[in-house]
């Protein structure tokens, strides 16, 4: 019963958020719309990263590869297809890439997987660069720009989708299987979990949303080349934001991504030259002093709230 009440609460909260987001663009300046789109992009990246890496503990640094795959799908099809189809196409491309990569490499344990995904971005970037220079004879590509509000709505749609999917996964058998893999992979395998299949499918699902957001966001850039599309920053940021927020609850990555992308916005405008430096310092401080992130602080506070009345009684 309790979990059903929780589900209702989740849907009410999600619905309110959605209604707010859908209503907003009419009342805001275009700057705010762009800012919100940016925040939503990071929220989507962080949430989809957390779908796979949160419960399993496999730290993936491949987000930039999937994001970039989406960007390139959009470069290929933005002139011939409408925005929603481009987003889905970008997601599908990343899904297939992740399925391939995952089935090959997800039997690697722990840090070897991290090393591999770290290199994957460089591999894809270098391959695409080589292909563009030697086969198609260009370096960059032009993307048909879309309207800011349309991009915003597309991002909201992806956000809702990733929210629903991650909620569904945490409540389903798949989520339990992922949790079991995170606790002990061997024990999970012995209890009848098809470890490789579960990991690969979840990895691909999380990549789908990264690709879709890449395809959508690229419509704001109008010009792309392999270096901007496969920017390694899109690999670091989701990990950092998820660590900053925490991964135990659904709200935690959202909070982490929101706070951090706002921080990025402030730092880039106030200190354009020292922004990455400050960013690195903040990162070090967060890892050093808040190992469980915002979530750790919030949960500690919530537990204290709960405990105090019982102590009084």
């Amino acid at each position: 019963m309790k979990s059903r009440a929780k589900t209702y609460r989740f849907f009410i909260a999600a619905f309110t958020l959605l209604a707010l987001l859908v209503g907003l663009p009419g009342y805001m300046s275009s700057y705010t719309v762009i800012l919100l789109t940016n925040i939503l992009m990071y929220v989507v990246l962080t949430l989809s990263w957390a779908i796979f890496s949160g419960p399993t503990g496999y730290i993936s640094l491949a987000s930039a590869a999937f994001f970039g795959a989406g960007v390139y799908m959009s470069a290929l099809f933005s002139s011939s297809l409408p925005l929603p189809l481009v987003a889905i196409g970008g997601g599908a491309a990343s899904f297939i890439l992740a399925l391939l990569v995952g089935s090959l490499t997800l039997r690697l344990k722990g840090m070897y997987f991290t090393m591999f995904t770290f290199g994957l971005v460089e591999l894809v970037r270098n391959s695409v660069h080589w292909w563009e220079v030697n086969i198609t004879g260009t370096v960059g590509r032009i993307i048909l720009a879309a309207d800011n509000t349309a991009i915003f709505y597309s991002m909201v749609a992806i956000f809702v989708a990733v929210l629903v999917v991650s909620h569904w996964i945490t409540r389903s058998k798949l989520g339990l299987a992922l949790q079991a893999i995170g606790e002990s992979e061997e024990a999970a395998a012995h209890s009848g979990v098809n470890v490789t299949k579960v990991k690969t499918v979840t990895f691909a699902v999380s990549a789908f949303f990264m690709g879709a957001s890449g395809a959508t966001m690229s419509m704001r850039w109008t010009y792309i080349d392999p270096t901007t599309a496969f920017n390694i920053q899109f690999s670091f940021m989701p990990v950092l934001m998820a660590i900053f927020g925490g991964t135990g609850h659904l709200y935690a990555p959202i909070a982490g991504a929101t706070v951090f992308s706002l921080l990025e916005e402030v730092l880039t405008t106030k200190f354009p030259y020292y922004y990455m430096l400050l960013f690195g310092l903040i990162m070090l401080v967060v890892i050093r002093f808040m190992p469980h992130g915002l979530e750790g602080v919030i949960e500690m506070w919530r537990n204290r709230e709960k405990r105090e009345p019982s102590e009084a009684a």
Partner: protein
Amino acid sequence: MLVKFLDIAIGGLLMGGIYALIAVGFGLQYGVARVLNIAHGEFIMLGAFCTWTLFTGAGVTPLFSILFCAPFFFAFGFVTYRILFTPLRRSSESPAAFEANSMLASFGLLFVIQNLALIIWGTPVRGYSYLAFPIHLSGAVFSANRIVTLIASILLGSAFYAFLVSTRTGKAIRAAAQDPDAAELMGVRIHRVLALCFGFGTMMAALGGLLLSMTSIMLSPVMGMQYTLIAIIVVVLGGLGNIKGCFVGGFILGLVGYLVTSAQPGLSMVAYYVIFLFLLLVRPTGLLTK
């Protein structure tokens, strides 16, 4: 045909020496201190830039600046480990948690170092030429500085190997590599030894960068990342914490890199990566392990 073959073989070996040195440092940091140091390449970059600054600013011969760079970067790494990673290791619940946390902390380090370097040295690429006269080796031609770097990297690698096998501290490092908890119980001051390893790793990276800068390549503050990747691949190739393996892996990677670069310059990173992927799938523990 023979000349072409020699050209590739020697050219690959010359590059491989530096790769090996870089990888020895990375292997120490990950294999013993359990820090997957994504910022490793940044120390290579720092080493290269320090050498450049000393050479163009004060006229210090690059080989001579080893005397400055080695102790400085060793101390840098040692202190970094003490300030950042020792508290992390104490506060992490499990070794796996420490590995994840320390890797993320090294990201932070990467951002900080790279952007400090951008502030200090700016974006334009730098370079200097040193010992650039040609040397003929049975038909193939190489510049003298490449041969000097190969000899220097082999000497440094062997010296470190000798240090590991023949001194008490070396023994403590090897014990910590096998089992840090058991080593601690046997009276090894574990935090100090791990910090030493991180310091030595940083020193190797800086010396690798120093030698790299001598081969007349272009230096830029963002050059580090590709060498981190190379270090990772060589370490996987040679086996973690295996100095001989690092040299074998470095030479293999150097050869492949030289071969691919002479055919298709843009694809050398891709070739490295394909080797890496193949190896991870077939022998994730390295080539030389039983």
